[in-house]
């Protein structure tokens, strides 16, 4: 029995009345298309967008404006953030998925691989957005999303424990030790022995070992890893040294790190903006600064970009594109979205306005120098192997860190080519 057969059985059992209503709608659709000149709100149709609960109130006002301007109803469906992308992938092929979704750019590769998103034409509006936001939503030379916010790590410094800024990892550790706090610096690890490639990436980048080689066009080459060779080996050796010196600890989870920082047990904390509320609540005096480099180059964090992508099977591409490109891309809406989520807006004009908040300005400044998190589908398998190798080094189980690292890179290279 097929999927459809099963679902229909359920439907027939639970309420075919709804089907009747649907088919009635179908009927009126065809009649209105035979009189294309018929205008007014009734004829212009409906588009459906899946959003998360934080963004929904802002989008509601944009949807009302859209309805007033062009007569198309925007049906906003609030869904759990973690469910949006997986459900979208399974529902689009059935023809019952939404016209557009809110999503983070790093899922783009998976969405394209499954053929569920369509490229968007931003026309001449691309320069209204921050470069990194457009770069993030560009996949295989095409733009698949309208970005609305960016998000990245930075260094949060407890200004009471460490009164002056630091410029290198060693200086930071020295200042941390001098402060007399329990931990010189805090980098949270994912729970249960997985290390945290995301939190450690800025330091890895400072050794010039990006995950993927970056091609001439500035995009990631999803088939060639960049973190092997001598650069990767020196990062692995550095990791092992930090494990010995107890500056990095695999058993400090993200939660332990945050709790320790807000209770004043460390002057330095590598964290995203999501922990700021807790830090403010405990009245810790802080400054947000660039992450100090451990290697010869700058420590650039990954930048995550959030945006809206359109379904490849949308039945109303014209209205959907118009709404997400012209309305969500609009500076006012982007600023309102910033107010709802406190993440730096992707729209330049909105970002300038949001800079009055010094935290946003600081995070935005660090992020502007970052690199987008790779969106290639291979990334999913990279995360686990990568974290695994880091965990082996950070738990002191690896006798030869450089060899452990190279083994991971070789294994991954074979898997993603």
């Amino acid at each position, binding site marked *: 029995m097929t999927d459809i057969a099963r679902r229909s059985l359920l439907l027939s059992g639970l309420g075919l009345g709804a089907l009747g209503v649907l088919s009635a709608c179908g009927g009126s659709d065809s009649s209105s298309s035979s009189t294309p000149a018929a205008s007014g709100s009734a004829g212009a149709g409906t588009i459906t967008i899946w959003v998360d609960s934080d963004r929904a109130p802002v989008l509601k006002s944009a949807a009302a404006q859209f309805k007033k301007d062009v007569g198309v109803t925007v049906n906003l469906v609030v869904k759990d953030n973690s469910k949006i992308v997986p459900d979208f992938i399974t529902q689009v092929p059935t023809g019952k998925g939404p016209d557009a979704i809110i999503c983070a750019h790093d899922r783009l590769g998976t969405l394209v691989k499954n*053929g569920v998103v369509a*490229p968007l034409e931003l026309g001449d509006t691309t320069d209204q957005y921050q470069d990194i936001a457009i770069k993030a939503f560009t996949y*295989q030379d095409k733009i698949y999303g309208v970005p609305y916010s960016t998000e990245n790590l930075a260094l949060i410094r407890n200004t009471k424990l460490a009164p002056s800024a630091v410029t290198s990892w060693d200086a930071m550790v020295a200042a941390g030790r001098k402060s007399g706090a329990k931990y010189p610096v805090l980098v949270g690890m994912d729970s249960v022995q997985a290390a945290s490639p995301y939190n450690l990436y800025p330091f890895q980048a400072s050794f010039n070992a990006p995950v993927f080689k970056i091609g001439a066009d500035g995009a990631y080459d999803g088939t060639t890893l960049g973190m092997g060779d001598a650069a990767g080996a020196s990062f692995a050796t550095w990791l092992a040294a930090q494990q010995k010196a107890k500056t990095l600890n695999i*058993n400090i989870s993200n939660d332990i790190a945050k709790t320790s920082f807000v209770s004043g047990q460390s002057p330095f904390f590598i964290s995203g903006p999501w922990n700021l509320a807790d830090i403010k609540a405990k009245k810790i005096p802080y400054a947000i600064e660039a992450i100090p480099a451990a290697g010869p180059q700058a420590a650039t964090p990954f930048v995550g970009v959030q945006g809206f992508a359109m379904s490849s099977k949308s039945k*109303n591409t*014209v209205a959907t594109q118009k709404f997400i490109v012209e309305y969500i891309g609009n500076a006012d809406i982007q600023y309102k979205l910033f107010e709802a989520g406190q993440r730096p807006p992707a729209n330049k004009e909105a970002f300038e306005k949001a800079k009055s908040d010094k935290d946003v300005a600081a995070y935005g400044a660090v992020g502007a120098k970052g690199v987008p998190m790779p969106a290639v589908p291979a990334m999913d398998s990279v995360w686990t192997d990568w974290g695994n190798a880091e965990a082996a080094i950070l738990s002191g189980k690896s006798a030869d860190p450089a060899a452990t690292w190279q083994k991971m890179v070789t294994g991954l290279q074979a898997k993603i080519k």
Partner: protein
Amino acid sequence: MTKEDFTPPAQREERVHRAQVRFSGGAWSWVIKIVLLGGFDALMVLGLLAAVAKASWVIVAVIAVGTIAVNLIYLPPNRELPGKYLAPGVAFMLIFSVSVMLYTVYVGFTNYGDGHNGSKDDAVLAIQQNNQARVPDSATYKAAVATKNGGGDELWLIVVDPKTGQARAGNNETPLQDASGVTTSSLGAITGADGYTVLDFAAVSTRSSEVSKLAVPLSDKGADGFLHTTTGSQAYVYRSTMAYDEKADTFTDTTGTVYRDSGQGSFVSADGKTIQPGWKVNVGFSNFTAAITNSQVRGPFLKVLVWTFVFAIGSVVSCFALGLILALIFNDSRLRGRRWFRLVMILPYAFPATMMTMVWSGLFNQDFGFINQVLLGGLQVPWLNDGSWAKVAILVVNLWLGFPYQFLVATGALQSLPDDVNEAAEVDGASGWSAFWYIKFPLLMVSLAPLLISTFAFNFNNFNLIYMLTRGGPRFTDTSLDIGSTDILISMVYKVAFGDQGRQYGLGSAFAILIFIIVGVISWIGFRQTRALEDIN
């Protein structure tokens, strides 16, 4: 058996007949029955029509047979009395259990998963969409979607050439030709042209599937590209980088490489390059054989299989042993306050297991956990960071979670044993250990053995514990799959089907079927064995 329970057949038949008369007569019951059945039939006919409209003949057949069966069972009075009670249960079992199993089996024979997500038509459409590139640095055309007066319902695109300012029009078949009499609004939008009726946004929106297919060639030469509009008010010049030949069912890219349907659900070139996305196809037994032939899967799969048995059997034995010992101790009437002890014993059973598992995971933290810090005085036992220790940790936690249940059922079984068993043992000269081992224990096993089998089956698939405590880690280093030392089969299936490494529903379903077979066979053998125990009585 008492006297009242026995009814002679003749009397019983008569009683059934009386019941039939009593419960089926009455005009009201007929009215209610007909209204309910009528409502049900109306819904089914509606469903039937919807299914016919979509030409889903399997659904049509299922609905028709189901409706006829329901009417035959419920309409005639008293004919199919047992059927009336069985029908709803059977229907729900078919819908919620059997169909799900059949679907799992079906998926197990496909390559459904990331990259093979939908139908072939969807894949072809997506490839075409993904391979239309806007010509770099090309100008933006002001555009409007229109119909030609007297030209029927077909859509035309009217544009204003940004270089010359000349208005032009064309459609899918007709390359751009000059148009005249273009009028524009104060905002610069095209509102009309001689011989054309410009559509307003609402009309464009309702016909957007046609608009999205509107590709107007710039000239007779295809290489020049085509104009395409996404919002109805602006158009851009595109070129296709991948051409689909519908007849040959092949894609050809700009360098002339031909991609053919490989039969494995994707378009592949001669030198092995694959275009994404692919689509879902039947792959036969390859998901099942992967467990044995694929070296990346085989090693971990066998290790996981062995650990699953160790874990399930170890958990049953340890929990049962502890539960039984405690039950024996607290069953001794000489013990004071045993009611309170019993209450304390079942506490772990009263907390939600998922939550407690997460608490345990914190307790086991190597540097900060209570167990290393306080109980072991700062010893650095790598509870969750080392494969063997993680296995020990899992067994410890499952003992803590599982023994109260065994304690409860063992207490119940002990209390149901008649006291004369003890006396008889004493008379025969058995006492203490031998009285327990040779007399009580076999009697207990009669009622407890089936529960142990179900405990085994439960632990065999104890996903919550594994996933919440270790997520299966620490990971194996000899495979690229996300599988680790403490993964049991079901957590491995979850990670394969829904994990972070891309979803492979087909492989996951195949593994799920293998688990079903293993658990089914073991339970079957187990229940056969327990029948031998019943002979003791």
